[in-house]
Structures are given as C-alpha cells and as structure tokens.
C-alpha cells in the first residue's frame, strides 16, 4: 500500500476521532492502538482543547506520534491514578475502551468468557468499566467485528449498557452515555427510541450483508444508510505523522 492510499485503518481512525467532536475541555482516555490514534487526530485537528495523558501520569499539551516518549516541553500537567479516579467520578472524561463482547444495548464484557466463578477464559477482569460507564461518556472500539464480539448476551456485564442503566431510574442513569461503537466494518450508536444499537454508517467497501452476518443480534438499520467519511488528504497527512510505523493498519481487519 502506498503512503497516501487510504486504508480501512485510516477510516476507522477518523471515525474514532469523530466520537470526540465537541467534547471540549475534558480528558480523553483512549485504550488501544486505533483509539489512541483517533483521539490524537481529533486533538491535533478539530478538538484541540482535549486533555490527554502519555498513558501513565503526565498530561501532554503536545500531540505525539504513537510510541514516542514525551519530553519535558510536551507536558502540561500531572494525572496520577488518584487524580484519574477523581476526574472520572467528576465526569470530565470520555473513555474509549475495547470490548471482548458487546450486546445490542451496549453492555460490554472485558472480564471473562464463560461462568465468572470458573471462567473458560479469564480476560482482563472488569477493570474500570463499571465506574467509567456509570460516571461519564464511553465509546467502544472493536477491531474485528464478528458474532463472537457482537453478541446477543454478554457473559459478564463489565461496562453498563442502556437497558441496565434504564433499570436504575433517573438518578442512577443520569451520567450514563454510550456515544458510539466503532468497528472495522462501520459506526454504530444508540440513538433509537429504546436505545438499541443502530448502524450509522458502513465503511467504504463494506456490504450491509457482511455486517448483518457478523452481528449476533438484530441491528436497527436506518433508511438511507450513509458511508463513513474518508479522511481528507490533510487528515491522511496527520495520520501518517502520528502513526509512522503503521501500527493501526496491523490492528484493523480489512
């Protein structure tokens, strides 16, 4: 693939960046390669006020390429784990997490496959997913969209979905928002009357059939389905600078 040819990973990175549009002055925590790249694209183009860390404890004012170590001049603040918890309980945060499983209401599982008591596969555990999803905006990234990841029922609810949030009543659900799910095939949201997952756009070259065949539940399909925007040549230039090694391409299944 030539340097300026647009790949699926580039489309995904822009779709991820768009999740953070209008977020303004809040902290973005983007877990994984494509989320990191997309968040960096957003901050370096249309959403410059976002706060982002080096993945450890430094808030960086400058946007660095993936894998680059910050120097003192790149730093604008301090965000040790204690401050991360305060920030997430405060709500000034948008996290993009992965999802080993996600269902039609956006319940996410990163904990385990099988029965929690004696799992067939122990995964990461719930980590911060329960607290994140009930306290501030969350989006998800699925690099390999298939019916083992997009499932009718998740084995263990780590991140809270809309049906679980609704059951908590107006107090419990008031800070809950799952903004979007970006996969290697398309962009999805929950802007439906009962907050069931809806296909928003298909990535260029992806047939609707492929999405339907690889989704383990019934998606809401709007009339007049759009195609996910392709990055402009300027945006492609920024993406090449932010990911010179092409890590995102290795992650995204075409």
């Amino acid at each position, binding site marked *: 693939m030539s340097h300026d040819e647009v790949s699926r990973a580039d489309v995904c990175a822009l779709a991820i960046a768009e999740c953070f549009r209008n977020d303004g002055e809040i902290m973005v925590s983007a877990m994984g390669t494509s989320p990191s790249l997309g968040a960096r694209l957003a901050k370096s183009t249309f959403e410059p006020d976002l706060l982002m860390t080096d993945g450890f404890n430094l808030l960086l004012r400058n946007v660095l390429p993936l894998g680059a170590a910050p120097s003192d001049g790149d730093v604008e603040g301090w965000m040790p784990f204690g401050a991360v918890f305060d920030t997430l*309980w405060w709500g000034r945060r948008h996290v993009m997490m992965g999802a080993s499983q996600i269902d039609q209401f956006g319940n996410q599982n990163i904990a385990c496959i099988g029965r929690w*008591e004696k799992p067939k596969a122990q995964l*990461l555990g*719930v*980590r911060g997913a329960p607290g994140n999803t*009930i306290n501030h905006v969350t989006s998800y990234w699925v690099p390999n969209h298939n019916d083992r990841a997009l499932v009718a029922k998740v084995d263990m609810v780590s991140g809270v979905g809309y049906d679980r949030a609704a*059951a908590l009543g107006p107090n419990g*659900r008031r800070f809950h928002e799952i903004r979007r799910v970006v996969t290697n095939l398309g962009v999805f949201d929950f802007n439906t009357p009962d907050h069931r997952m809806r296909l928003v756009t298909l990535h260029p070259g992806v047939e609707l059939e492929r999405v339907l065949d690889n989704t383990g539940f019934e998606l809401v399909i709007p009339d007049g389905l759009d195609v996910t925007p392709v990055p402009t040549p300027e945006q492609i230039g920024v993406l090449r600078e932010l990911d010179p090694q092409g890590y995102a391409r290795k992650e995204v299944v075409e």
Partner: protein
Amino acid sequence: MDKRMTVDDAVAEVTDGMTIGIGGWGSRRKPMAFVRALVRRGVKDLTVVSYGGPDIGILCATGQLKKAVYGFVSLDSIPLEPHFRKARQNGALEAVELDEGMFLLGLRAAAQRLPFLPTRAGLGSDVLKINPHLRTVKSPYDDREELVAVPALKADVAFIHMNRADAAGNGQALGRDPYFDNLFCMAANKAFMSCEKIVSTEELVAGGPLQSLLINRMMVSGVVEAPGGAHFTECPPDYARDEKLQREYAATAKDEEAWKAFRAKYLEVTESDYQNAVSR
C-alpha cells in the same frame, strides 16, 4: 526511633489465614522482597488485597493464596497476570473482583475506620452479581439516590516499597505516581515498608519535594533496607521493570518444570541470593 529490621523479621508477623494488603500497582513498585519472604516463610490460606501484579500471581503459583481481592491483576506490559489467569480458570482461587475505583474507596473506608464509602461505580454492572456480599445504600437527603456501599478493605498486615526511607519509618516515593501505599498502611493493623535505601532524615527531606514524603512514621511498624526490593517490577527513578525476567516468569505459567526451576532459582533463596542472581 529506629524501626530497622529484615524482610524476614517483618514477614514473621504473618500467620496462616491472614489478610495481607500489598502496595504498588500492577507491575509497578511492588514490595517483591516481602513477597519473596512470604514464599520462603510458607504461610498458607492467605487473602491478598491488592492492585494486583506478580504479588498475587506468585502466591497463586505457590498455592499460598486462598483469596484475592483486587481491582485487576496485571503485569502492565503483559495485560493479564498469567499465573492468576491459570488459578482463575482452574477455579483454584476465591476472588473478590471490584471495579478499580471501588477498590480505592474500600481502602479509604478502611483507612478512615468507616464501614463503607458510597459510589455510583458498580451500579448496573455484574460486579454486584458476582459479589453478593455487596450492598447498596440510599442517600438520606432529598435526592434519595441509591449508591453502592463499598465495604472497608481492612488487612491484618500491609507491605509497601518506597524509594527512600529513614530509620524511623518516614518514606519517600520518588516516582511520578504515588499510588495508594499510604492507604494500604492505614487500612492495616500493622504495616511494614521496604525501601531502596535508608538515609538520614536530613537526606530524606533534601532528596525530593516535600510531596514525595508519602509515608510518615505513624503508618509503619518496621523499615527494611532492600535494594532491588521491587525487582522485577519497576521502581523509578531507581530502576525500570526487568521485562526479560518478567517474561521468563510469565512463561512459567504454561510449563510446570519451568515454574519449578524459577521457584528454586528466584524464590526459594535468600534476598541477597536473589539480588545476586538478577544482578544488573
């Protein structure tokens, strides 16, 4: 005031069935010299409360751990602790899995001698289902909001590792993240601190900003000078994680013979023999 002792003196306070709080975070500034001493001592049926890393993994592998209370168990550069994974998949471990923030509130509750602290974290998730001991509480104010009451995470003994300390038990974290080691000490009946180097109080205070003096001497009953005491986890700025040894350790989860060899070479030896074996 002189609280200096050896790792083995400190670990002698631990008996079968105790609950141990372990500071650090994942594979970062873990009090590994104490963990190795726990292996040598051979105490059983332990409960460990930890932002878990190789502390939980090693005690799983040696069969000394009965129960783990954790927000996660990770080696950072290896996202899931492989010995912990194995113990969980074998159903060999009692587990209390909490959201990472819930875990912090449990520590704070214990440090403040409160029965619980309230939070939204956990609501709507299966954390409440897998932990049937968890209760919710209703706000007594007009909002009547229902919240999770995270119970205090108390420990019998806590172990932490700092960069510097004085003989009286004032401790200094020179890395960029203090983690929650002060809370681990306050949440336990008794706490022991190892450090890279014991220095005079004057040197300690001069050795970093005042904010780095995370531990005061009220919090700890004993201080151990243990250079490399967090190894193979990271202890910046003194040393980075030993990724090579961590990979070697991680690989032993899939190979019983390799685990036996690792245990014999790195765990069933004195702390000074360990440090010689990994001398950097």
